[in-house]
């Protein structure tokens, strides 16, 4: 594999695709890796201030009998989850630290919650981004105690008199060890240990001693008067936790389909030894010889967020109405902060069906060209949610109109204009596509291009290549 191809592969997986300069001046791999991890600043994303959250008091308004105002206030408040969605999406496009956001996106699917509460979403996202490349144990503890998780998996309803097993089950099944590594009794005992976990009106974690079951418990072969923190510690002591997380990380960064058990076992061993240092695990992967092999190339299907962010990092696009980006996330099947269920987005082949593939193939033309995309979004039945995500009634077909956006081609065109025309198809294909396509196919693609001018040639070739099935891969 050539150095340029290695650069491209790493940018596709650890970031949101290659930037133009890297095409001409690939860097030694250790430098690319170093740069990806050199996160110098961390910007918190905020749509609701603590004061605003404290002032948000629907109960008081309900008591005052102001029903109409109450509804308006609720809707206004809930719509801020979409503001947070767009703010994060923008961050992904503009950031100098794409690995941080890409990894945070992984954790966002891993610790999937859906609360209709922008303040809780914001707090949880903060923990995920802050710890994205930090320590998994720290992140697990912070997430478990965040109001988004306490509410979503009902741990705040988990009381001594009436245990609720939801969190205790999912923390093992989905967040740490995976099915088959604990018993139903372990779930029951862990639920007892988590009793009394709650949050106060500021959203801060509180431990309500009176609701806690302080009696002895038996969990994963150990006995003691465990509390929730002890349970998380015991879970982190299990090597299975390191293995489970490593498998999932591997699927996200290396391959949707083929999991090399030997590599995963080795990685997981070192991840465990490092006491769950996420950056070490990723550096381990990106520095491995086996990562830069033909089995890795094209072994991922881009998620909708990766796809959209990839376009926008390459060719800047401005949307008059940024709700367009909500629409695009919905028709492509991944709306941030609205995972399909507690297991997050399944990813891989599940991104693709006849409809989503057709949308993906028509999207470049819609975004960069001059065609409209006339697709209606799926209604998720929730009147409030529809209001805030702008889907509304079935009868309202909201389509994507190109007149509502501007594309800035300047940098992109300036870059490719330097290239001789006969080399363009080859160069653009090797820049844009993660895998090579046959000469015959490339000629066919070229046959559809608009050769009226240098500009139209570069633009049309770009759109045609981005419409290829291969472009959906990473």
């Amino acid at each position: 594999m050539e150095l340029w191809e290695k650069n491209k592969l790493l940018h596709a997986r650890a970031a949101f695709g290659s930037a133009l300069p890297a095409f001409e001046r690939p860097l030694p791999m250790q430098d690319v890796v170093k740069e990806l991890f050199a996160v110098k600043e961390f910007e918190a994303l905020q749509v609701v201030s603590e004061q605003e959250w404290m002032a948000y008091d629907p109960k008081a308004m309900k008591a005052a009998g102001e029903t109409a105002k109450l509804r308006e206030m609720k809707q206004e408040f809930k719509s801020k989850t979409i503001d947070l969605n767009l703010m994060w999406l923008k961050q992904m496009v503009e950031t100098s630290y794409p690995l941080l956001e890409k990894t945070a996106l992984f954790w966002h699917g891993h610790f999937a919650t859906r609360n209709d509460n922008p303040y809780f979403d914001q707090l949880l996202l903060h923990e995920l981004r802050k710890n994205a490349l930090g320590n998994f144990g720290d992140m697990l503890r912070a997430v478990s105690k965040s109001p988004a998780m306490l509410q979503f998996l009902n741990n705040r309803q988990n009381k001594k008199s009436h245990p609720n097993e939801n969190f205790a089950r999912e923390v093992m099944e989905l967040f740490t060890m995976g099915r088959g590594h604990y018993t139903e009794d372990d779930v029951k005992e862990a639920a007892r240990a988590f009793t009394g976990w709650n949050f106060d009106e500021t959203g801060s974690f509180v431990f309500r001693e009176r609701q806690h079951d302080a009696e002895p418990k038996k969990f994963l072969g150990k006995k003691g008067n465990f509390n929730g923190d002890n349970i998380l510690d015991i879970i982190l002591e299990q090597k299975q936790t390191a293995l489970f997380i490593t498998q999932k990380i591997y699927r996200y960064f290396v391959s949707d389909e083929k999991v090399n058990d030997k590599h995963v076992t080795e990685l997981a061993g070192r991840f465990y030894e490092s006491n769950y240092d996420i950056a070490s695990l990723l550096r381990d992967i990106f520095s491995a010889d086996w990562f830069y092999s033909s089995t890795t190339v094209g072994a991922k299907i881009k998620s909708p967020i990766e796809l959209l962010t990839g376009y926008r990092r390459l060719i800047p696009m401005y949307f008059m109405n940024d709700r367009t980006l909500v629409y695009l996330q919905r028709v492509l099947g991944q709306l941030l902060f609205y995972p399909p269920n507690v297991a997050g987005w399944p990813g891989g082949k599940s991104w693709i069906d006849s409809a989503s593939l057709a949308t993906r193939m028509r999207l470049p033309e819609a975004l960069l060209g001059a065609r409209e995309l006339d697709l209606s979004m799926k209604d998720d039945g929730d009147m409030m949610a529809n209001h805030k995500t702008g889907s509304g009634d079935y009868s309202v077909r909201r389509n994507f109109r190109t007149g509502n956006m501007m594309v800035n081609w300047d940098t992109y065109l300036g870059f490719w204009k330097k290239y001789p025309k006969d080399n363009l198809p080859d160069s653009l294909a090797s820049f844009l596509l993660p895998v090579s396509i046959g000469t015959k196919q490339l000629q066919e693609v070229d046959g559809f291009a608009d050769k009226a001018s240098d500009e139209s040639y570069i633009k049309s070739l770009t759109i045609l290549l981005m419409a290829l099935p291969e472009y959906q891969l990473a």
Partner: protein
Amino acid sequence: MTLSRRKFIQLSSLGSASLMVPEFLKGFGYSPVPLAGNKVLVVVQLSGGNDGLNTVIPYRNDLYYKARPRLGIRKENAFTLSDEAGLHPKLPGLKALFDDARLAIINGVGYPQPDRSHFRSMDIWQTGSSPREVLQTGWLGRYLDGAGMGNDHSAMAIEVDDTLSLAMKGAEKSGIAVTDIRSFHENSSNSYFRKLASHDEEHHAKLADYLYKTLRNTGSAADYIYAQSKIYNSTATYPATTLGRSLHTIGSLIISNAETRVYYVSHGSFDTHVNQADRQAKLLPQLDDALTALVTDLKLNNRFNDVLIMTFSEFGRRVAQNASNGTDHGTASNMFLISGGLKRAGLYNPFPSLEDLDEGDLKHQIDFRQVYATILDKWLQADSKEVLGHKFDHLSFI
């Protein structure tokens, strides 16, 4: 006989895109493509949580009126189904089907430990999971995965929508989402996409093969559906609503089409927290009109016996009304099953108790997966245990 006729139509439809039903076939008194025996399922999803208690009304029960002093529908306003039960006044078509023994109403359908979140409960209904497990494929998708049984047609399952529901996604196979047959065909006939689809070169990545296969399947499904729509485009009158147009598409395809076994369409939103009466009075007649048109069309073309229409919603609503003349998220609700081929029509079972409630909500009597299992085994000739992971007791409506 059926086979040769079907073959004839298939061949001719491929031969000429503009082919209409040959006059001589009509002359023999055949409906366009009478393919008796090919069982078809039409799923109508009522999104948002339709209020079952104001759809099928327990009008003999004082508790109902007590819980809903303003929202309760009075006996004299409802259609009479039995001494106990009435039907929402805006459902005259369903009332006629009920009288005709073509409608089965199953009460109190739900699942244990009900979840009152739209998305989680819809997830459970669409994947056919237990409330404790999270599945990432849909029940109809898994039917497509396993159903095969030699039938790998690209248009086995069609959803009339722009995006595909989880219910229709399997691990390897998925349904086809199409709203407008003509533009679906035009889009997929884009010469560039066709050129790409025709590629038989080996791809450098295995996943690329999967994408090209999906592309080819979409193309052949688009061709097939388009050709079928040319054979027969129902001239029956359907209401000019979104649901009406969708059911018109479905009706036309059922009548012309040999291969599609499952159709899926959604209607809503029924999330009636506020001013429920108005919203139901708008949405239910849309449902009633569209279903009536479809049934009429199917009857006329002798397909009603082979088509089973099933409605469901992710949950019913709280027994007691709220302060905004609406109802909040609840649990069990009723399902409608409509067909000319029902074995048992009418009120399938009594109402769930309005006294013995679970935090103000109905306790379910029938697990929705029993309905699925019945349909999978007895209607679609599939293996419900394979699709649902467990064996569920059958119901006797078919």
